[in-house]
C-alpha cells in the first residue's frame, strides 16, 4: 500500500515535468514544505530537501534577515581578528542552485490543524510538512533591569551574530585601557557551550595587544566551565595570566544598566567598564507561541528519527530550539546535522518510504584560544532504538590534547565548508 502510494506520487511528479536538471521553483504541485528560520538547521534542511528529492518537493524558507551571519566565528569579530563581512553569507544560492523559494518575513502564527503559517506581512502559506527552526530567544523576564527603556541597546548579549556583535566590538574599542570587561554566562543548557569561554580568550587576546592593563571577568552561573574546562583553564593560565579572572557559581539576577553593574543571587555586585550579559535561553518565540516548547516551557521535544514535534503532527523542530538528547550540544554543527536528518525523514514520509531507522552523525566544535591556536571537542551520536533517543557512541569523541595552529587552519576551513554545505 505504502509502496503503491509512492509509485503514484512519483509518476504524477514525473508527468508534471518537475524532474529536471535545473532548479524548478514554485508553480508546481509537488508536496509543500515550509521552513521557518534560515540558520544552520533550517537552511540546511531547505537545501537538502530540494537536493535529495530531486526538486520534487516545493520548499519555501521564511527568514527575516537579509543574509546569514554565523554565530560560530563571531567571537573573532569581537576580538578584532575577523570582520562581520567575513562571517556573512548571502542566501541567494539556495534559490539559484536549489530552487528554494525565500520569503523575507517573520512568522506570526502557526495553525497546525489547518496546516497554515501566517506571516507578519499578511501572506498565508499552506504546507504538507512544516519545519520550525527558530533558534533561541532570551528569558528577559529573569533580568528586570534589562526590560527598562534603552537597556537592550546599551548592554549586549552578542549571542545572535549581527548588529550586537559589531556593537560589542565597538564598546571594547572605546573602552579606556585599565577597564574591566565582564561577561555573564547563564546556567546550562544554552546555545554553544564553549562560546563564552572562547569569547573571553578573544577579548583577552585583544587586551594583551591593545589594552594590556585591562581585565576580563567571567561570571559563570555554572559550577565550573561547561565545555573543554582543562583546555580553557590552561589557556587562561598560560596565555592570559592576570588578565582573565574566572568566577563560578555567579548567577545573575538583575542588571543595573545605568551603573554598568550586575547583581547576583549570592555574590557581591560587580561593576564593569563594558558589560556583556548572556541571558538564559529558551526555544525561539515562534516555537513557544505555537505550543511546541513542551519541556519546561523552554525546549521542544522531538522524535529523533524524524525531528517531528511531540506536540504537533506534521511539524518538525530543529536546532537549538529542541530538548536535546543526552550529551548533544546546542551547536551550529549539530543543527546542520538535524537539518539533514530531518530532510531525509520528511522526504521519506512524503514519498511513503521507510524513514532511516539508524541515524548516526557527528559533532565538532572548534574554539579559538588566541587568533591562531584552536582546541576542539568532537563526538559521534547514534540512534538508540530501545531508548528512542540519540546517544554518544562509547569510546568515540574527545578533545584536543593541546591548543595548536593546525586546528586553527581546520577551524577556519570548517567554517567555509559548513557555510557552503548549509547555504550553497
Amino acid at each position, binding site marked *: 500500500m505504502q*509502496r503503491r502510494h509512492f509509485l503514484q506520487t512519483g509518476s504524477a511528479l514525473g508527468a508534471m515535468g518537475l524532474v529536471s536538471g535545473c532548479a524548478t521553483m514554485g508553480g508546481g504541485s509537488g508536496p509543500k514544505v515550509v521552513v521557518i528560520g534560515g540558520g544552520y538547521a533550517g537552511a540546511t534542511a531547505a537545501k*537538502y530537501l530540494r*537536493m*535529495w528529492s530531486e526538486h520534487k518537493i516545493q520548499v519555501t524558507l521564511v527568514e527575516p534577515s537579509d543574509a546569514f551571519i554565523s554565530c560560530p566565528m563571531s567571537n573573532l569579530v569581537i576580538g578584532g581578528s575577523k570582520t562581520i563581512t567575513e562571517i556573512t553569507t548571502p542566501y541567494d544560492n539556495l534559490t539559484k542552485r536549489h530552487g528554494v523559494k525565500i520569503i523575507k518575513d517573520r512568522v506570526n502564527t502557526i495553525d497546525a490543524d489547518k496546516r497554515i503559517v501566517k506571516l507578519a506581512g499578511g501572506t498565508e502559506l499552506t504546507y504538507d510538512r512544516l519545519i520550525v527552526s527558530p533558534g533561541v530567544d532570551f528569558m528577559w523576564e529573569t533580568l528586570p533591569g534589562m526590560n527598562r527603556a534603552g537597556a537592550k541597546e546599551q548592554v549586549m548579549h552578542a549571542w545572535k551574530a549581527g548588529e550586537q556583535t559589531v556593537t560589542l566590538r565597538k564598546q571594547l574599542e572605546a573602552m579606556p585601557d585599565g577597564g574591566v570587561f565582564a561577561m555573564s554566562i547563564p546556567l546550562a543548557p544554552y546555545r554553544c557551550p564553549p562560546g563564552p569561554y572562547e569569547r573571553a580568550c578573544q577579548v583577552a587576546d585583544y587586551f594583551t595587544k591593545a589594552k594590556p592593563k585591562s581585565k576580563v571577568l567571567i561570571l559563570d552561573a555554572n559550577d565550573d566551565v561547561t565545555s573543554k574546562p582543562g583546555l580553557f583553564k590552561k589557556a587562561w593560565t598560560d596565555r592570559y595570566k592576570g588578565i582573565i579572572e574566572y568566577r563560578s557559581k555567579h548567577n545573575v539576577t538583575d542588571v543595573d544598566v545605568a551603573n554598568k553593574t550586575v547583581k547576583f543571587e549570592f555574590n557581591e555586585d560587580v561593576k564593569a567598564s563594558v558589560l556583556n550579559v548572556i541571558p538564559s535561553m529558551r526555544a525561539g518565540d515562534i516555537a513557544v507561541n505555537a505550543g511546541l516548547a513542551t519541556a519546561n516551557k523552554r525546549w521542544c521535544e522531538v522524535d529523533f528519527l524524524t525531528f517531528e514535534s511531540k506536540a504537533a503532527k506534521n511539524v518538525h523542530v530543529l536546532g537549538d530550539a529542541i530538548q536535546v538528547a543526552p550529551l548533544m550540544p546546542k551547536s551550529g*554543527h549539530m543543527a*546542520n*546535522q538535524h537539518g*539533514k*536528518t530531518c530532510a*531525509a525523514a520528511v522526504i*521519506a514520509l512524503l514519498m511513503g*518510504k*521507510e524513514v*532511516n*531507522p*539508524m*541515524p*548516526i*552523525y*557527528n559533532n*565538532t566544535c572548534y574554539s579559538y584560544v588566541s587568533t591562531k591556536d584552536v582546541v*576542539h571537542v*568532537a*563526538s*559521534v*551520536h*547514534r540512534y538508540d532504538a530501545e531508548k528512542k533517543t540519540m546517544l*554518544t*557512541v562509547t*569510546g*568515540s*569523541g*574527545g578533545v*584536543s590534547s593541546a591548543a*595548536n595552529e*593546525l*586546528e586553527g*587552519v*581546520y577551524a*577556519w*576551513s*570548517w567554517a*567555509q*565548508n*559548513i557555510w*557552503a*554545505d548549509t547555504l*550553497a
Partner: protein
Amino acid sequence: MKIQQTLTLTALVTLSGLAQAQLDPVHVRSWAASCAACHGTNGHAQPGMISLAGVPKEVTIQKMLDYKAGRVPAATIMHQLAKGYSDEQIAAIAGYFAAQKK
C-alpha cells in the same frame, strides 16, 4: 508482490554481499552527509580540507581503519570520530563517496 520482490532481490545478491545489500543506499547517503559539515556537500570540500568525492573506497576505508586503530601519528580529530562508526558503516560511507564525481 512484496514477497516476490524480496525473493528476486535475494537471488541477485551473493552471500558475501548480503550485509551490504541490506543497507538502504538512501540511508547510507544520510550517514555520509554527516561528513559534509567539514568535507563539503557530497564530499566536495572547500579549499583547505580533504575532498572525499571520487576517492577509491579502499583508500577511505584504510584511512578510517588506521584512524580507528590509532595508527595515524599526530591525529587531531579523525581518530576520535572514526571510533564512532562500525567497520560496516565506514565501508558503506566510503562506498558512497567513491561513487561521487570528483
